[in-house]
């Protein structure tokens, strides 16, 4: 084999390896296509024979059921696809918030396992072992039980300043949108641009002169100051929609339902325990000499972690982190067990109202597939960014 010339140079023939390879691929493709076609056509045939209606036309019909919580207004007279949209947005809402919180918590716990304080180390290890070894469904049921059984009823909700906490969830004040708020929003946008410019300038100066400027607090201060200035320029609107206790419910203001909270807390604490292990493995993969070298250069422990350990650990951390993000998103489908109207729950209801089981399950599968592919595409892009650039 080793003495033969590479296949690209050999003349083409019916017996060539390249041709055989092509034939095998075509045959495999045809077989898969045939199986899919057979399953699809047989399903359609069976459904027709049994008088089961099929097709996606139901999506434009009026849904006829209401949805407990939604980021945008949904009325039962609106169509099924709008209902599915509400479900998808609800899934996204818990997935995005969950990924963010789990990353923060997981990183803290992961770093905590390298703490010089034995108590912190022990607590972090105990957290990981307790949370990752119990099925996530039990986590959700437990948190939901805690929130609905332990908290006071809505009539005697706990009041913390303008916040209410009860079996009805958390109620909090929200600023009412007025014309003046546009100035504040504009200020924040301007602040973000300014902060970015500042960071670029500071980095250039640091590389040129070695004078280090604040790279975190200063930009944060810029954004806050710009937002505040915008708010003042807009006439400092202070109208706030505060929750008030009604006869049977806490009304007005913003609200997070116990279903959402239980799902968010459950998914976050569960996934964070895995993320902590991922972070720990990443940090452990950086040779101890790096840390010692950093210390020799006079970097304190915080700077050592931020500037030396983390950038190197990230390369090991990102790929398994993608898995955890995908798991969190997919685990959010367990929401039906605790009554959160995610896309699976909406599909369940739609399935029952219309009888289109195959179609509804197909929609749910497509939604999760799309979300997962988007997440991993983003993470792959980020991974390529932090990977070692070999020049």
């Amino acid at each position: 084999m080793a003495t033969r010339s590479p296949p690209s140079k050999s003349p083409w023939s019916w017996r060539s390896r390249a041709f055989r390879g092509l034939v095998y691929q075509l045959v495999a493709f045809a077989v898969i296509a045939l199986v899919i076609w057979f399953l699809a056509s047989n399903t359609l045939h069976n459904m027709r024979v049994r008088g089961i209606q099929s097709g996606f036309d139901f999506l434009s019909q009026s849904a006829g059921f209401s949805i407990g919580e939604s980021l945008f207004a949904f009325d039962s007279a609106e169509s099924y696809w709008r209902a599915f949209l509400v479900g998808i947005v609800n899934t996204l809402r818990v997935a995005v918030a969950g990924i963010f919180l789990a990353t923060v918590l997981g990183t803290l716990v992961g770093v905590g396992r390298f703490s010089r304080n034995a108590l912190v180390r022990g607590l972090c290890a105990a957290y990981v072992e307790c949370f990752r070894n119990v099925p996530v469904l039990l986590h959700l049921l437990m948190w939901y039980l805690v929130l609905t059984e332990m908290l006071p009823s809505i009539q005697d909700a706990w009041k913390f300043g303008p916040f209410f906490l009860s079996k009805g969830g958390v109620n909090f004040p929200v600023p009412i949108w007025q014309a003046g708020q546009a100035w504040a929003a504009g200020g924040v946008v301007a602040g973000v641009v300014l902060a970015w410019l500042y960071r670029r300038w500071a980095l250039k100066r640091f590389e040129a002169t070695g004078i280090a400027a604040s790279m975190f607090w200063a930009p944060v201060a810029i954004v806050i100051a710009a937002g505040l200035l915008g708010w003042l320029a807009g006439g400092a609107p202070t109208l706030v929609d505060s929750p008030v206790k009604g006869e049977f419910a806490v009304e007005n203001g913003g609200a997070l339902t116990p279903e959402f909270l239980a799902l968010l807390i459950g998914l976050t604490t569960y996934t964070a325990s895995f993320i902590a292990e991922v972070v720990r493995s990443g940090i452990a993969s950086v040779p101890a000499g790096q840390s010692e070298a950093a210390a020799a250069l006079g970097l304190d422990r915080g700077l050592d972690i931020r500037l030396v350990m983390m950038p190197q650990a990230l390369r090991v951390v990102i790929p398994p982190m993608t898995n955890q993000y995908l798991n969190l998103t997919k685990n959010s489908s367990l929401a039906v067990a605790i009554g959160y109207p995610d896309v699976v729950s909406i599909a369940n209801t739609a399935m029952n109202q219309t009888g289109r089981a195959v179609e509804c399950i197909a929609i749910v599968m497509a939604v999760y597939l799309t979300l997962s592919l988007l997440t991993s595409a983003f993470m792959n892009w980020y991974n390529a960014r932090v990977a070692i650039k070999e020049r």
Partner: protein
Amino acid sequence: MSRFTKQWLAAALAACGLMAAAPAMAGKTLDGIKSRGQLVCGVHTGLPGFSAADSNGKWGGLDVDVCRAVAAAVLGDPEKVKYVPLTAQQRFTALQSGEIDLLSRNTTLTLTRDASLGLHGTVVTYYDGQGFIVHKKSNIKNPKQFKNQTVCVQSGTTTEKNLTDYSKANNLNIKTVVFEKEEAATAAYFAGRCISYTTDASGLASIRNKGATTPADHVILSELVSKEPLGPMVRRGDDEWFAIVKWVIYGLIEAEEYDITQAAVDQLKTSSQDPVVKRILGTGEDTGKLLGLDKDWMARALKATGHYGEIFERNVGPKSALGLPRGINNQWNKGGLMYAIPIR
């Protein structure tokens, strides 16, 4: 494996069944039951009074008695039934895919279910209506007081849609919390998450007995917001089987009209001269032959379960644990809606 995963697995398997099963099923249900020697009946996972397994694993209830009567009529033995407990979402797929022969699971008969699922509703076995249960201390007397309130409900039921319709018609802006499983929905209600739980009034009575620590702390509101005619369903495309189920149920109802009790079947078979009684018990004309069964079909069914009135009294009636009044489920000549098409 969690029950949740199991359910999805079951749904997926049922969907695979749809994909793979051979199409020719029509007319074969009775043959299948006979060769198997067993009727496969889809029932509720646990709704005491309608279908629930006792501590010995023996199934009982109004819906279960329908299965027993049908099994006695076609197989000669009310015990030859395999019960498949199904959730609200699984039930139709299980029937469509041929996993069960008969769905007797407090299912509301509606146009959509009849016309678009490939199924047939047979005969109403319980006239129900959707009601609400509330905590006594909430002091709510009427569902119209639910303005801006949260109500717990199970998904996969007609209830969810009725609730929305009611909320809209009365401008109540009711918020729903939808659970996949009835147990989860009622647990959330009993924990105080929702002001009320809603389902068929008969189901509420059952849930109050089963789930509440003190049943007396909960009130079932008298106002019903919908018609819920409950009855068994069969697959489309097998008219013979449809007719058998339909006529066994009519037979049970008509037997009450003519007072053919479980205990009196044997005696009436020899002594009765009433032509209607003789037709029902198979001592007169052979009604069984027309259905593809033998002469004694209805006599066996009645010996197994008793007539409709006895089934009602035993499982859900005023003297049972549920204590539901006979109300509109009484015979037509006693002010109810139970009116059997005559067996003749």
